[in-house]
């Protein structure tokens, strides 16, 4: 796999726009300070960020030995040092033992259950320029924001398939998809589904509280990479450029009353071992501060996008991905682990037996095209998708496949109180 070439100039861009885009790409001084909060962004003095970043910067994966890995695997409760060993290259030869241990821990905490959910993208407008993302503001794609009627229509189609948990997603545009719009979508979702999650741009505590009152109870925010230097070079424009505001999103969501929060790095953007360490420690330290919250981790790898099919996850092969997931499970036995449709069927079917507890089904990352996908009809004015998926199984297929693997599919295990 070649090194990622993220910069693509789409034909539709005006000369002035192109000039700005190129300047952002080439001239660091044209970009805002990514460590500085923008106006309106709430600051919480937490200390967790420095804790996580200090550990990550001090982590030298090459320094861990076979003996460190064996010691980690022999321990009943693994701590941060053990996690570092399990994420190191020295642990790769022990992958099978890690998988056995991970399966044991998953069984203790989750039995043989596997939770199913589906994402619903309601808008793909975006004000950020994140160079690897299909929704980025310079990518020439079909943009769309669903109306409330369209959202209801999509939700009814999804609910009719039997799905009970939904994850609502938007591109990151406060002006096109404001908090009230998302709140209305949550209220609608709460009528059609038992469990409503959000994966939207990070907001302030009072806004999270409002969205919680509208029916959402879980918030997912991907940090993408915890390496702030790499982050600065990948997120060139928009709110998302502000690294600490994004880092603190889960904590604000908790303070806003959300029951659960989810985390992830997008593997392939920077040193994946360091990113995996930071993701797990982000959960670990927050759990110590807010022990009553439910935590979960995802592990997406980079995927090709519209207008750039060369984007790939670099050195994160399935073996490395499996290592990360086993290390997560051994270090954080109680957290949920989600594996999305970015991964192929054979990987998802295998990993749910070891470490993953949640998989998506009936997935579309486009906007307003569920009718087409679910009923085989053509959807003419759908918005384009965020990335290419690798597993397009429907809920029915996924349910049957999970049962076939000896697992117990669960559609809901939650009440809103």
């Amino acid at each position, binding site marked *: 796999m070649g090194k990622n070439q993220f910069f693509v100039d789409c034909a539709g861009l005006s000369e002035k726009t192109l000039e700005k885009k190129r300047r952002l790409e080439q001239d660091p001084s044209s970009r805002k300070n990514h460590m500085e909060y923008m106006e309106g962004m709430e600051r919480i003095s937490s200390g967790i960020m420095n804790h996580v970043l200090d550990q990550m910067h001090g982590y030298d994966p090459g320094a861990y030995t076979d003996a460190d890995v064996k010691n980690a695997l022999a321990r009943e409760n693994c701590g941060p040092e053990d996690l570092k060993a399990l994420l190191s290259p020295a642990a790769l030869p022990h992958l099978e033992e890690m998988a056995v241990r991970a399966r044991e821990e998953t*069984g*203790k*905490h*989750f*039995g*043989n*259950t596997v939770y199913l959910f589906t994402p619903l993208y309601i808008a793909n407008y975006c004000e950020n320029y994140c160079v690897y993302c299909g929704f980025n503001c310079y990518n020439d794609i079909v943009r769309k924001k669903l109306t409330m009627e369209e959202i209801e229509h999509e939700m009814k189609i999804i609910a009719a398939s*039997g799905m*009970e948990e939904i994850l609502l997603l938007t591109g990151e545009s406060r002006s096109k998809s404001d908090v009230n719009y998302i709140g209305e979508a949550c209220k609608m979702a709460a009528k059609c589904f*038992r469990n409503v999650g959000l994966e939207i741009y990070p907001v302030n505590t009072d806004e999270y509280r409002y969205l919680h009152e509208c029916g959402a109870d879980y918030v997912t925010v991907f940090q993408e990479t915890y390496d702030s230097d790499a982050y600065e070079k990948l997120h060139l424009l928009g709110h998302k450029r502000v690294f600490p505001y994004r880092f603190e999103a889960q904590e604000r969501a908790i303070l806003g009353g959300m029951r659960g929060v989810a985390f992830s790095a997008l593997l392939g953007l920077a040193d994946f071992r360091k990113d995996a360490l930071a993701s797990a420690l982000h959960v670990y330290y927050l*759990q110590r501060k807010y*022990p*009553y*919250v*439910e*935590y979960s981790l995802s592990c997406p790898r980079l995927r090709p996008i519209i207008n750039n099919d060369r984007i790939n996850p670099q050195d994160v092969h399935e073996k490395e991905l499996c290592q990360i997931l086993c290390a997560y499970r051994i270090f954080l036995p*109680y957290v949920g682990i989600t594996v999305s449709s970015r991964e192929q069927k054979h990987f998802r079917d295998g990993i749910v037996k070891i470490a993953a507890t949640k998989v998506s089904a009936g997935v579309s990352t486009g906007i307003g095209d569920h009718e087409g996908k679910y009923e085989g009809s053509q959807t003419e004015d759908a918005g384009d998708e965020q990335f290419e998926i690798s597993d397009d199984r429907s809920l029915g297929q996924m349910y049957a496949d999970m049962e076939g693997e000896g697992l*117990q*599919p*669960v*559609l*809901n*295990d*939650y*009440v809103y*109180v």
Partner: protein
Amino acid sequence: MKNDPFTLGGKEFHSRFILGSGKYSMELIRAAVEHAGAQIITLAVRRTNTKETENILDYIPEDVTLLPNTSGARDAKEAVRIARMARELGCGDFVKIEIMKDSKYLLPDNNETVKATEILAKEGFTVLPYMYPDLYAARALVDAGAAAVMPLAAPIGSNKGLAAREFIRILIDEIDLPIIVDAGIGRPSQACEAMEMGAAAIMANTAIATAGDIPSMAGAFKSAIEAGRAAYLSGLGRVLERGAAASDPLTGFLRD
């Protein structure tokens, strides 16, 4: 043990095995009823909050008493709401209070549990509170109107057995309500030991759910619980407690 029933909420039960709710499957419920003789089955309200395709309520035989639990509740207020929801769902008046403010160890919060017990007992529920084995909390639960006290033996799902043995023993000695040992029981021998100590019943789930042969392990638990109960009734528990009598009595010097 046909002549040795125990009573909860005015109902008589002959089986002293209660199926917990942690890891559910059809096979487990069937095994618990048919092989372990369970007459009470716990179910998490949050798992019944689903469409009929996988509703656990449909799997439970009618003559079994449902014990809905409030898992997912983080304080007394949430537990009370979930309990009321259970009643509305037609799960009856029994409720097991589970309040956890820790997603890692899932340890029960005794303070909040006492509060919820008091509210729900006043509303006519038969309240079975899951608790950390603390004597003061247990006394507060009695005062709050609990129908039994359910101390954990070890962290839930851990299969570590009677880690809290000495504290459960104190509850058995001091509390006049049935003591039902809940959570952490990993082997039939541990269930047997708890019954020998005088526990009224055993609640378990993971130990059976994760066994290689579920029906066979369910049967093993039934035998172990009955053996422990018989031993307790026979007075074995007291003999063990005091140890052997000294062959040369210490008080042999006393004359008049």
